[in-house]
């Protein structure tokens, strides 16, 4: 026998459709060297980590990146990224507050504060003192928060038992559809008629259901729309438990997905407040602002 043996084709490079945009930003119009108080908030979440610098009570810069498998390293890397951008050193920062899932693992933090209080404070800064209801759609949990005009929490609930209605769920669908995560929202509107929400409340089953819909002849856009609708319905039921007041603000990565945001607005009959600041940094920003208050008290 003279069979010809050929090498198996190499596997195509695996694209990471779920990978969202990491950002580093510094306000070039400000000079941190002339500041009296520099504080930092580090939000180590289950999916993303952010470091925010606040200079004399104003947002100065931030770094938003994916959380690695080690919380202390994620915190260090996030902070290093923004410090490198503006030439700052850790010794220049007066107060560091850790928040998020990995808040107790920020080695250089002076204090740890829960992400619930930090998101409320951050949303108050980003949306103004009219913010009353905050929906934080994080990587692996979802929070509904009420706050007063100063950004102090008055009511909250959190669902971190299940990934439905979270960023991780959206990442799963992005990979399944092989469509970059940033395109999911806009594509969910590119359909002929409204679709019913995916009925499963669990991400794993929702993925199976989405596969079934594709096999049944649904277009990718229709499946994405069905999933966005399911996420919206899921978080709205969470919000309704504490009630929704005017001054509705959405934080977290999903706030960048119009496919979910517009559907939430439609279900609630309320428009979410706009902001020019990256919604993903709300927790770290709130932590840095808490740090500013604490440092100012200490200095007084």
């Amino acid at each position: 026998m003279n069979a010809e043996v050929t090498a198996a084709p190499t596997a195509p490079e695996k694209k990471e459709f779920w990978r969202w945009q990491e950002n580093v930003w510094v306000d070039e119009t400000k000079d941190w060297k002339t500041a009296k108080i520099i504080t930092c908030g580090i939000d180590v979440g289950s999916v993303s980590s952010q470091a925010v610098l606040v200079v004399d009570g104003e947002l100065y810069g931030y770094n938003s990146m994916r959380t690695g498998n080690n919380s202390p390293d994620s915190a260090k890397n996030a902070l290093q990224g923004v410090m490198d951008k503006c030439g700052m050193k850790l010794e220049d920062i007066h107060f560091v507050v850790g928040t998020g899932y990995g808040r107790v693992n920020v080695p250089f933090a002076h204090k740890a504060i829960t992400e619930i209080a930090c998101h409320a404070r951050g949303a108050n800064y980003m949306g103004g003192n009219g913010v009353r209801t905050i929906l934080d759609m994080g990587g692996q949990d979802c929070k509904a928060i009420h706050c007063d005009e100063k950004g102090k929490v008055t009511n909250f609930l959190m669902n971190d038992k299940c990934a439905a209605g979270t960023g991780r769920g959206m990442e799963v669908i992005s990979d399944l559809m092989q469509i970059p995560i940033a395109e999911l929202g806009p594509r969910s509107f590119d359909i002929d008629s409204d679709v019913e929400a995916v009925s499963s409340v669990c991400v794993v089953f929702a993925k199976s259901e989405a596969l079934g819909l594709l096999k049944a002849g649904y277009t990718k856009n229709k499946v994405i729309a069905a999933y966005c609708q399911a996420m919206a319905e899921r978080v709205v039921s969470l919000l309704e438990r504490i009630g929704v007041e005017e001054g509705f603000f959405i934080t977290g990565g999903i706030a960048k997905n119009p496919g979910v945001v517009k559907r939430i607005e439609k279900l609630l009959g309320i428009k979410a407040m706009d902001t020019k600041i990256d919604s993903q940094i709300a927790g770290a920003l709130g932590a840095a602002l808490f740090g500013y208050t604490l440092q100012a008290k200490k200095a007084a």
Partner: protein
Amino acid sequence: MIANYGYKDGSGEYYISIDTDKCIGCTADRACLTACPKQMFEIITDDYDDEVAWIKKPNCRTLAYDCADCKPSGGYTSLPCMTACTPGAIKHSW
């Protein structure tokens, strides 16, 4: 502040709410700590430096099961935690 601890899953909503305004300066001598047979309550210092009760983190994800002994399917008239909390800070959603 109303703090809701618990979760919602495919089987229902399971939240225990604690009104921290009623919990601060507890007039029941923190009776919830010993009243709960599963010892789910704990006193912590919250983000605003107030000493209040909360539900221990592991219990927040298993409330439906943890509270089952106090909520028999045949019905119940009172719950130990709510009875012990005379300021009325504790409520169950189910």
